[in-house]
């Protein structure tokens, strides 16, 4: 650490990053607050309308449906990705032939572009030519076939499965590297005491990676709140709004309905909702830790 005599040098070093960050990441949040009080279609004169936009959003049942779906996506991610990833990581955390191969394939979906994943899964779910329906047919379970993305009850489930598939690998690898930090002396001591594998896992391994599990839960929540691309490409929120999340709802209203003020109000709500949910979970999880 050094103390510089000329503080302007520090300013010169920090200001470029700070400027870009302020203008293109922080400023938009304030812009959305400002425009959320306006009625504006992008061309004609802007009009101040107070809280009208918010009133309208909060009275729109489609908005509440999108909030519910957002929560569903978060729940599916947390209760799908984390347990599956943890279980697999525990299984792989031993001397096993091909461990590297399992890791490589396990992480692969995480690096693939969401657009590629969405289009691929759209075809997998396709009712006529899709992999799933053809597979069900081939094993004689044809009666289980569904129009996965075309049926309002199945569509959101299908979307959630794809989301789980996309990110299990991320937490799988995070847990695997956390497991490697568990001190082997403690495990050997437990071995000498005759602890079974389950006991070792329950009383030694899980407690020592508990922090990482909590961090992963927070990451998983903030990550799944960002769901937009996947649903936009797979279903655009349809059929009949059944897969609408807040971001797709916002996109539709703003850019298809040309209502920038209304869209800004939804943006503000998304922002508050996301930050609120993240703050609440960090608080709750922290309390548990103590």
């Amino acid at each position, binding site marked *: 650490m050094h103390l510089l005599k000329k503080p302007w040098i520090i300013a010169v070093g*920090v200001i470029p990053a700070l400027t870009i960050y302020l203008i*293109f990441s922080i400023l938009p949040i304030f812009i959305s607050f400002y425009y959320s009080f306006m009625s504006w279609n992008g061309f004609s004169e802007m009009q101040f309308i107070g809280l009208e936009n918010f009133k309208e959003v909060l009275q729109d049942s489609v908005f509440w449906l999108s909030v519910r779906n957002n929560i569903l996506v978060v729940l599916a991610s947390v209760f799908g990705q984390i347990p599956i990833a943890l279980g697999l990581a525990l299984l792989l955390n031993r001397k096993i032939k091909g461990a590297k191969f399992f890791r490589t394939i396990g992480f692969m979906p995480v690096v693939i572009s969401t657009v590629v994943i969405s289009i691929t899964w759209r075809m997998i779910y396709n009712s006529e030519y899709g992999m799933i329906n053809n597979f069900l047919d081939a094993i004689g379970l044809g009666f289980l076939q569904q129009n996965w993305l075309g049926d309002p009850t199945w569509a959101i489930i299908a979307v959630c499965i794809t989301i789980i598939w996309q990110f299990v690998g991320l937490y799988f690898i995070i847990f695997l590297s956390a497991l490697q930090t568990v001190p082997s002396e403690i495990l050997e001591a437990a071995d000498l005491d005759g602890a079974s594998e389950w006991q070792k896992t329950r009383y030694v391994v899980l407690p020592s990676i508990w922090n990482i599990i909590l961090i992963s839960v927070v990451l998983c929540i903030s990550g799944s709140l960002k769901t937009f691309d996947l649903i936009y490409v797979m279903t655009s929120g349809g059929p009949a709004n059944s897969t609408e999340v807040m971001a797709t709802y916002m996109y539709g209203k*703003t850019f298809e309905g040309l209502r920038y003020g209304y869209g800004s109000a939804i943006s503000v709500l998304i922002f508050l909702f996301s930050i609120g949910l993240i703050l609440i979970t960090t608080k709750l999880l922290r309390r548990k830790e103590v």
Partner: protein
Amino acid sequence: MSESVVNYDTVSKNARKKKRFKRSTIYLILLVFTIINAYPIFWMIMNSFKTGQEFSFDPFGLPDDWVFVNYVEAWVTANIGSYFLNSLFVGIVALFICILVGALASYFLSRFQFKGRNLLYGFFVVGLLVPIHATLVPMFILMQKLGFINTHLALIFPYVAFNLPITIFLLTSFMGSFPKEIEESAIMDGCGPFRIFWSIILPMSRPALATAVILNFINNWNEFSFALVLINDDALSTLPLGLANFAGQYSTNYTAQMAGLTMVLIPTILFYLVMEKQIVNGMTQGAVKG
């Protein structure tokens, strides 16, 4: 005596059998996971080499003849070459700016003591929590005011801004771990802070820089939402946007879609296989260190 030997033998045989059973079960589970992860991708690639007709009656199995019509069709109708160049250009320029200004800021944040240093660092890192899709509408408004809509600048700046938090997080913690003595002799020799940054700190940070570069690139390469909102011209489209539009237009030509996806996917997967270690590090380090 001989009885006890036999006994001991059967016990160990049983134990071995049990152990073998356990091992096979573990392998089986890991194998199922791997198939679930890899098969959808494999299915898509296989079918991209079939004619539309063959795909419709045999969506499983290898192609009878490997045909490339789909590739020709996707390449000609979808401008994949131009999307590719756009993605490459935007991704590399944004990553270059982000690393340069991010490394400079990280240098001052990690190697100097000044008032508000921790606050400033916290302000940068909190950007990890800003939900991207909450900024789509205000970003559109902002870019329209700046006259950047339908230019690559409209993508470059947000990409820099949204990658700065993780870049600064990774680089600051890495640079902060160098001992203080590093700069001392350089200061004695009369080197200024920028000289020290350029010829000592930056070269020493190579491992963290590599991680940050790769992470930036993957994020930019896969980004879709900003491109969707800010680019409205096919000639300027990046790969994810162009691909989504192509799949929307040729929504019933499944095999051509698959060919387009495969062309985009193969470079990503090759890049992943070559750089696996850095990619995995970059994407999981935030969690493990956080």
